[in-house]
């Protein structure tokens, strides 16, 4: 073989590769494509693999087939009960119909503002009919379903499928937060005051209970003590009564004498009838 034969072979291979690469294109599993001929759509390919096109004439525009995420900037909205809140939404979407997509929106960069407009206007419409409390809690799921459906309907003609619209955040605007904090503080301090007062109440109750128990204990003891004393005294009285009945006259005399003996100090005034002094007085 001559050198020129070899060179020709190489040139032919190169030309072949160039021809093949312009006549065939490989579509990835994640892609779909629109084939354009002088700006006109001639084919739409959604299946991965090798596909044929007219060499040098057809232009292949590829789009992602996967779910795309679009994070919409947070916006303030006013709920039905006139409360303002900041809603931060995001959209999961995909290009369902590349032909319609390229016709109406050309590319992803131009599609995003359109998605933004549609979704945001539905969020505003739907959420504005709900109360603040509904937006932030259970009912949100239903509201979002509605937003998703409406957005899906509106964006269908652009070849876009809205997979899901969700609210990442639904928050109070910053200027309202301060008021909420103020209220929370007041609430907590009032709870604290109540707890302290309850403590005081409990403590007083316990003290009063104790005071009562103590007083009752002593009163009961005193009452019982009186009874005991009474019993003792009664026994004594009985004994005295028995003595008394043995010789009433003498007992009286004897007791009187005992009393006399117990007199101490002071001045003694004695009448002259006192028999024992008769010798003294007759003088």
């Amino acid at each position, binding site marked *: 073989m001559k050198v020129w034969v070899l060179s020709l072979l190489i040139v032919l291979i190169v030309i072949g590769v160039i021809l093949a690469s312009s006549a065939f294109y490989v579509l990835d*599993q994640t892609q779909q494509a629109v084939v354009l001929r002088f700006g006109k759509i001639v084919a739409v390919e959604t299946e991965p693999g*090798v596909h044929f096109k007219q060499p040098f004439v057809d232009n292949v525009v590829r789009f992602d087939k996967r779910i795309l995420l679009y994070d919409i900037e947070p916006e303030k909205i006013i709920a039905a009960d006139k409360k303002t809140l900041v809603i931060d939404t995001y959209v*999961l979407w995909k290009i369902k119909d590349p032909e319609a997509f390229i016709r109406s929106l050309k590319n992803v960069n131009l599609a995003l503002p359109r998605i933004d407009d549609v979704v945001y206007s539905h969020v505003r419409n739907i959420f504005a009919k709900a109360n603040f409390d509904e937006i932030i809690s*259970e009912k949100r799921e239903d509201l979002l379903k509605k937003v998703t459906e409406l957005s899906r309907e509106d964006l269908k003609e652009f070849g876009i499928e809205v997979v899901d619209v969700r609210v990442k955040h*639904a928050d109070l605007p910053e200027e309202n937060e301060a008021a909420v904090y103020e209220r929370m503080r007041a*609430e907590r301090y009032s709870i604290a005051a109540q707890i302290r007062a309850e403590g*005081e109440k409990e403590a007083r109750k316990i003290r009063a209970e104790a005071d009562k128990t103590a007083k009752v204990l002593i009163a009961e003891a005193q009452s019982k003590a009186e009874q005991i*004393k009474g019993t003792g005294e009664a026994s004594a009285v009985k004994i005295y009564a028995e003595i008394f009945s043995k010789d009433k006259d*003498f007992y009286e005399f004897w007791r009187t004498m005992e009393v006399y*003996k117990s007199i101490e100090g002071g001045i003694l005034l004695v009448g002259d009838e006192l028999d024992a002094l008769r010798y003294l007085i007759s003088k």
Partner: protein
Amino acid sequence: MRKYVWIIIGVILAVYFLTGVYQVGPSEVALLKTFGKFTAVVPSGIHYHLPYPFQSHVKVDVTTVRKIEIGFRSVQRGDRISYESVPGESIMITGDNNLVSVEAVVQYRVKDPVAYAFNITEADSIVRFTTESVLREKVAMRNIDDVLTVGRDEIGLETAKMLQKILDSYDCGIKIENVYLQEVVPPEPVVNAFDDVNNARQNKERLINEARKYANDIVPKAQGQAQEILRQAEAYAQEVYLKALGEAKRFDEILEEYTKAPDITRKRMLLDALQSILEKVQNKIIFVGNAGSLNVLNISDILKEMGK
């Protein structure tokens, strides 16, 4: 000369075909694509496929648990990991219109590498946004006290469940392993007020304990005092009774003697008593005479005179 050309061509071809060698790590699988179309799942090890543009592969880590932090970020500085909170993410509104700071960690893994690689883009962001969305909904369904205390675990579980449901609806091949709530606390501007409630609880306990201490002191003392009163009463009763008994005995004795000679005993006893009085009383005055003229004798003087 020609030989060299063939060698060069051979080397070029060899290098070209060698680009088809690839390695799949132990935690990975490779998805083999032939002309862009997915054809096979390849396990870990060294493998070969036809070079570009015939075949290609993507690798997906299927065993490693991935982690997303919500409300905070861990920052690695040298060997140490520190945490920075992200208030914009962590502050959430509760069902009773209070604000609470919730930090959470989501752990997930790829359960279906084919769906993961070919159905979605930005997997991390999708997981993060969906978690934030669900977590906030769950927090908003409870009041603040529940979120701070008993609701914690439930919120984590419910969020994980709901999250999985939503992600499955996207068919993105992601398995949520766990949603762990980390720090769930009152937001910084109201921390003091919340602390005050805790202090108040302590105060309450203290007041009650002090009252109990008082009760524990006063009641036993009163019991003691009651016992004292009772014993004193018993002592008195015994005393009175015994005294009467003694007196009775004594009287019995005297009476016995008395009956033997009543008159003389009587007199003697009278004089005894008189003597006792006279000894113990300092000033003794005797009235003499009738009601009209009252003579007063000072018995001390009389006795003094008598003594002379």
